[in-house]
């Protein structure tokens, strides 16, 4: 029985440690808590039967390291987006390419700029004024 809890404790403690160093550190809490439970049970049995407790101590050490690492990561590691240069360059290139494509597309009359016709009207006005002055 003691050996079973020690084996389970070591497996879960190692798993917690592995998960703690990966980006999945949040999940490390689950095997870490399980390792602590198995460790305490193994410790209790070892104490009662007066058996060596060295392996149980190893479970606790591994679990504590994984928990410290996980807690540290959850407090100090902020979620940041990495290198976005590539995406920014892609955005710019895509926009230039899109402009060319859009030039060749049929745009609904409703969306066409009326600025061109306005500009023409503005240009015509001074001429009319000139004529009136003359």
């Amino acid at each position, binding site marked *: 029985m003691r050996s079973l809890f020690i084996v389970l404790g070591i497996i879960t403690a190692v798993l917690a440690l592995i998960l703690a160093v990966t980006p999945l550190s949040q*999940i490390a809490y689950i095997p870490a808590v399980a390792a602590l439970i198995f460790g305490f049970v193994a410790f209790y049995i070892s104490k009662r039967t007066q058996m060596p407790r060295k392996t149980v101590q190893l479970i606790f050490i591994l679990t504590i390291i994984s928990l410290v690492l996980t807690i540290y990561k959850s407090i100090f590691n902020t979620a940041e987006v990495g290198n976005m240069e590539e995406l920014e360059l892609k955005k710019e290139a895509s*926009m230039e390419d899109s402009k060319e494509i859009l030039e060749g597309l049929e745009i609904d009359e409703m*969306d066409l700029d009326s600025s061109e016709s306005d500009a023409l009207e503005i240009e015509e006005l001074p001429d009319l004024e000139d004529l009136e002055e003359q």
Partner: protein
Amino acid sequence: MKHILLVSIFIYGAMVLGQNNTIAVGEKLTFTAAYNMSGLMTEIAQVTMETGQVKTSNATLLHLKCTAATYTKWDGFFKIRDLYESYVSPTSLTPYLYKRDINEGNYYKFMQYTFSHKTNSVKSLMRKKNSKGETIDKTTSVKINAGTKDIVTTIYHIRNLDIHKATPGEVQNFKVIFDNEEMVISVKYVSKETINTAIGKKECYKLALSLKNKDILKGGTNDNLLYLTADANKIPVYAKFKIPVGNGELKIKSATGLKN
């Protein structure tokens, strides 16, 4: 004369109804995307939704941009750099050009749709990389129904709906073209709900999304939800989804350049 008057009223009505009162040029919404890993919601990527303006020689269009990028800690495992773009009418949000550039790990895919609303068709360009790393282009013409939009425009179009006029339980369908296939997205107005977000406590319209005859969005009516703020901006503050490979959520981080 009577007919002309009727037609004029109809056109005016359509223009007023199809007006964009929600989306402003220069709007930027930032989200955090989380994925359920062994029961724990793990933040994996940042999603942004931006709007801009693009001027061509004869028109000014609205440029809708959506990007998805994994956080630094995930880049070593599975790097995602996705770009979704749509060029739409600034008033009616009718799409003219759609681009989708996907970079996920070693997977690359590019899709481009040029919409022809007169012929109700889409000219599609698909670019993929083969095992040797060479790019292969494939162009096809896809027939679409009137009013079919791309996925990016549909999201913005949902925001532009007059949800305040809807009654709980009301369903509206939207035709969307995705991967050269036309599909129907059903949007059901569930109720109003107040939720806590990074931009404050907001009263929201709770919408349930589902795809007709498709298995992409799994689960019942409570698995694929979209929360839009119950104000004039209708900001998507929270979304949760269930797909065949798991479930996740999107939470708003910041919202700038809003119209109202």
